[in-house]
């Protein structure tokens, strides 16, 4: 007997060991339940992290734009009749008013990590007989590349942008039959045109985007789009990605700009994540319930099987509290041991699934995230579930009348 363990622990462990087959089966059941929870939670966290990483490294977390241009109807003054319908004016591409001042303000905000002014507009990329409409983005590479990791997505060439360079999407390159080093004639709607050299091909993970993406230096785009010294957007990254919407609202309230956060522009993604989290929570609850009922069933059978022994323990001076603790401990131990095996099973299944399941391009489907916190929480929850499940059997055992129990 271990001299460090109190009576209740010694008896609980012995009772579990004696009912070996029962114990093994219920630990197996708990382990499967815990394994499912660990596997699902870790995989979901991985998928979410992967998506967020992709979204946040291929687009700014907050984008400041010029506010919508609205038609201001005449006041309904004496003798003036206001039209019932006010037509929305066409949205001209115009520069953000006093953008250097706004940029400096943004850079001074502690929660903002990077700020980059950009200009974007439509243009035509022409090579020989082929021409394609492109979204021309004029950027300052040093600051912009810290927000959108263009260098990480370079499929060919290099992320170099001098005033005569252009980086284009891989699909656009295919359409134009262009490779790195080729010249492209870029023509704006105003008729201004410029011959630029392709320095890099970029794969941003979306076919539509890859068909239109064209990055040039900020000054090149400004002259092509006829907006010398102007910018159409200010891209921003923040420290806490989940605070992006709050920060965007604060910026919009304080400045004459429209601020869109990544949370707002990816609302569908968040709806999908919420739905998945809800279904995952439901699965966890039902798995937890079935584990709890399993533990309770095994312990109730144990109380019935051991009623004579409980009776004799009571006769020799064991208190109701001691009997209660003896059975609660068995529930807790079953939950805890089951959670250890379950965590190992879940982690094993996750590692296997991670190795087997690949994306079409051979890259991982989700990053393998095995956080210690998940295992700790699962072990604690399984132990608490075991304790709660053991409450009814433990109460039943503690309330046994020793005379009736001994008589059997």
């Amino acid at each position, binding site marked *: *007997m*271990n*001299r*460090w*363990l*109190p*009576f209740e622990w*010694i*008896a609980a462990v*012995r*009772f579990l*060991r*004696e009912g070996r087959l029962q114990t093994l089966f219920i630990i197996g059941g708990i382990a499967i339940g815990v394994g499912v929870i660990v596997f699902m939670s870790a995989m979901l966290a991985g998928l979410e992290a992967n998506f967020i990483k992709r979204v946040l490294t291929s687009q700014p977390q907050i984008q400041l734009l010029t506010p919508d241009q609205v038609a201001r109807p005449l006041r309904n003054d004496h003798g003036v009749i206001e039209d019932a319908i006010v037509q929305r004016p066409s949205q001209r591409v115009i520069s953000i008013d006093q953008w250097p001042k706004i940029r400096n303000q943004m850079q001074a905000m502690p929660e903002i990590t990077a700020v980059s002014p950009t200009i974007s507009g439509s243009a035509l990329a022409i090579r020989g007989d082929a021409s394609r409409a492109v979204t021309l983005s004029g950027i300052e590479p040093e600051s912009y590349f810290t927000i959108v990791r263009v260098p990480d997505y370079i499929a060919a060439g290099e992320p170099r942008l001098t005033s005569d360079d252009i980086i284009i999407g891989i699909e656009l390159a295919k359409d134009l039959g262009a490779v790195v080093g080729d010249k492209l004639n870029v023509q704006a709607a105003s008729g201004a045109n410029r011959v630029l050299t392709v320095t890099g091909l970029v794969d941003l993970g979306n076919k539509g985007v890859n068909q239109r993406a064209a990055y040039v230096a900020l000054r090149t785009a400004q002259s092509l789009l006829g907006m010398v010294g102007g910018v159409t957007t200010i891209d921003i990254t923040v420290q806490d990605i989940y605070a992006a919407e709050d920060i965007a609202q604060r910026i919009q309230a304080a400045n004459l700009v429209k601020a869109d956060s990544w949370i707002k522009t990816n609302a569908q993604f968040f709806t999908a994540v919420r739905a998945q989290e809800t279904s995952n929570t439901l699965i966890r609850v039902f798995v937890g319930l079935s584990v709890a009922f399993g533990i309770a069933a095994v312990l109730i059978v144990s109380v019935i099987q051991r009623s*004579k*022994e409980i*009776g*004799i*323990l*009571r*006769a*020799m*001076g*064991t*208190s*109701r509290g*001691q009997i209660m603790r003896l059975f609660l401990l068995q529930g807790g131990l079953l939950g805890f041991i089951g959670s250890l095996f379950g965590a190992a099973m879940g982690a094993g299944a996750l590692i296997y699934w991670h190795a087997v399941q690949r994306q079409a391009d051979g890259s991982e489907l989700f990053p393998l995230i095995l956080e210690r916190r998940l295992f700790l929480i699962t072990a604690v929850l399984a132990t608490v579930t075991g304790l709660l499940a053991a409450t009814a059997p433990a109460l039943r055992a503690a309330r046994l009348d*020793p*005379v009736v129990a*001994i008589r059997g």
Partner: protein
Amino acid sequence: MAEDILRLEKVCKAYNVGQPTETEVLHDIDLEVDRGEFVALIGPSGSGKSTLLNIVGLLDRPTSGRLTIKGQDTAVLGDTELTHLRGHTIGFIFQSHLLISAFTAKENVMMPLLVDRGFPSPEIEAQASRLLDQVGLAKFANHLVSNMSGGQQQRVAVARALAMNPDLVLADEPTGNLDTKSAEAVFGLMREVNRAVGTSFLLVTHNLDLARRCDRIIEVVDGRIQPDGAPLRS
């Protein structure tokens, strides 16, 4: 004058009190057991012997009357105090030994001490070893009780009943399931402890030969104690 360990005055026990099916199984029981006395309790099946033993053993409460153990009136005690008094004053031996199968012989003997003290200790182990030696089972100390014979198991039960040095041991037909030789050994053991240590015994038995070798015989018939000197029913 001898000190009484156990005293029952006008003790009655009824079941289903206040209902049409009310049944009184013990009527006005007066009984005293002195320190060091070895008393046999006999009577036909259903006469109320086991009910009386349960009341004396503080496993059940009388419907009326007064039960005192070592001068302590048990009527005023709550469940916790009764459990404590039972654990420290009374040892039990049952017909079917009721050992705990998950433990070895020595651990079973240690059990009452372990329940009382909370943790195992060298003193508890030494006490259990000494008792097992006393009942002649020293070499079976580490055997699981489920692997022992009926006689050996009952001797372990005797050792367990003595673990807390109780003032009174209640033995409910302890030899009922044993062959003559084992029964004789177990009875001899109890008598030896009684004489050596002065532990009082209240022995329920159907074996009149064993009863005659006790200090006193009390016969219960239909829930009443027969007057002294009444002839023994065979």
